[in-house]
């Protein structure tokens, strides 16, 4: 089981993640989106870095994972893979873990940028735990996007963008939770990214909107929910791809 899982992870890393454009896009896209919003607003780096970190981990963890299944359906590699003695759940879990590794590794970039700008990490253990759980949570979300049994990558990208962009804007990255109206807080509380942003702010700035334990509990809940849904839906739809 572990060997099969690792085979899928290794295949994903070689095929999809270990590529210059993917890595560069994973770093540059959230950076430019972030800069477009913050330039000219004269905000302290300690406030910027948690937001940049949140966007980076969210976009990188959900960048490739949604397109693996439709891509493999289109490339006609999936049928070969499925006919091997591997269960769909192992395949999906492997895809999630590959995305998790990618998301967790790339998140080191904004943390390093922060340190270079003189932004210290006050709670490195909390930050590391938050990065790991969130990378897993968002990777599972990415796999959930690819459950519809299509071979059209563009359809899945559209569905994924339709969810991802609103999530970024409601998760306390651009507008801190304390400054949001009541309905804004209610909407933000539905987003898993809100809880990672909160943990990142706690780890770097030293304060959080929610209790730390609540952030972790909600992230773990969403991780389990997305994982179970992704596995169940893919188990149901994988045969419809052929």
């Amino acid at each position: 089981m572990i060997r099969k899982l690792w085979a899928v992870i290794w295949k994903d890393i070689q095929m999809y993640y270990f590529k210059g454009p993917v890595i560069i896009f994973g770093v540059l896209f959230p950076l430019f989106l972030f800069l477009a919003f913050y330039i000219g607003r004269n905000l302290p780096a300690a406030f910027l870095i948690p937001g940049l970190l949140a966007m980076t981990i969210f976009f990188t963890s959900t960048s490739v994972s949604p397109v693996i299944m439709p891509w493999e359906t289109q490339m006609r590699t999936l049928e070969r893979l499925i006919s091997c003695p591997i269960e769909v759940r192992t395949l999906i879990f492997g895809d999630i873990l590959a995305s998790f590794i990618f998301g967790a590794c790339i998140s080191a970039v904004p943390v390093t940028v922060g340190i270079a700008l003189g932004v210290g990490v006050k709670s490195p253990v909390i930050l590391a735990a938050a990065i790991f759980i969130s990378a897993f949570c968002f990777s599972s979300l990415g796999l959930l996007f690819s459950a519809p049994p299509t071979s059209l990558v563009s359809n899945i990208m559209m569905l994924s963008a339709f969810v991802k962009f609103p999530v970024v804007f409601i998760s306390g990255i651009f507008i801190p939770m304390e400054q949001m109206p009541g309905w804004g807080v209610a909407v933000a509380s539905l987003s898993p990214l809100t809880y990672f942003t909160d943990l990142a702010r706690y780890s770097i700035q030293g304060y959080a909107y929610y209790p730390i334990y609540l952030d972790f509990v909600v992230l773990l809940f969403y991780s389990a929910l997305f994982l179970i849904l992704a596995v169940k839906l893919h188990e149901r739809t994988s045969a419809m791809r052929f």
Partner: protein
Amino acid sequence: MEAIEVKVMSKSFNGIKAVDCVSFNVHRGEIFGFLGPNGAGKTTTVRILTGVIKPDAGEARVMGCDIVKDTQKAKEVLGVVPETANAYPDLKAWQNMMLIASLYGIPRREAELRAATLLKEFGIYERRSSKVKGFSKGMKQRLMLCMAMISDPEVLFLDEPTSGLDIQSARLIRQKIKELKEERKTVFLTSHNMQEVNVLCDRVGIINKGKMVIIDSPENLRTRIGGSLAVEVKFDKAVDMSMLGFNPERVGDNYKIYTTEPHEVICSIVGFATLNGLKIMGLNVQSPSLEDIFVKLTGGSND
């Protein structure tokens, strides 16, 4: 124990029956040819038997393992070259082999030995460190076969393995299929190439519109179903054959007449040639080919 046992298996897509109550057995060590027109249900049958999709009804076993209830175990004893599948283009040939070996749980050292042997046998060992995207179609297909065989499967499903390949690749694959028979492996071969099926297969199953039409050896099919013989004649110049009767079919420069009484037809042809001052350049009597039988059984609907 049979290598493959299928009992009243059915599968529908959007209300259309792709496989309709199909039953058959494939014996161990047998090369079984599976023929049918496009859309007859061949690939669906192969996908069910290789655990890619599930049947709506019926049972299927591969080496005694139920493909629905015991899918993983059944997959462990089979290898497959799907009709439309590809190796990973951005991985090297060697990496593709190792990936499949890992998924079959083959120990690393053993996998490397098998991979090297297979790649050498199929003439692509020198290209093992090249990415598959640079391979020709023939090389890709040979690699797919290597990938299917790395687990040393008892049953090998080959869906159109030589379709569209160059002569060398096709011959190499056919030779390998023959060797598999000598090793007592079971091969389930789907093909449109009648000559290939005729030469390689012990038995042939023909499926049409989702239903199994017949299963028998190529030779028995010719005698049981073929019925009529074909008398083929070639004259020295073009001629209006309608005067001869027998409803001849033009095949290039030749005319083909199907009959159960070849003597009568040959006498008529000779008389016709003498009467019209024609020279007979060629005359022979042929047994019905597998292709003739296929067309007869499938209503010529190989579209």
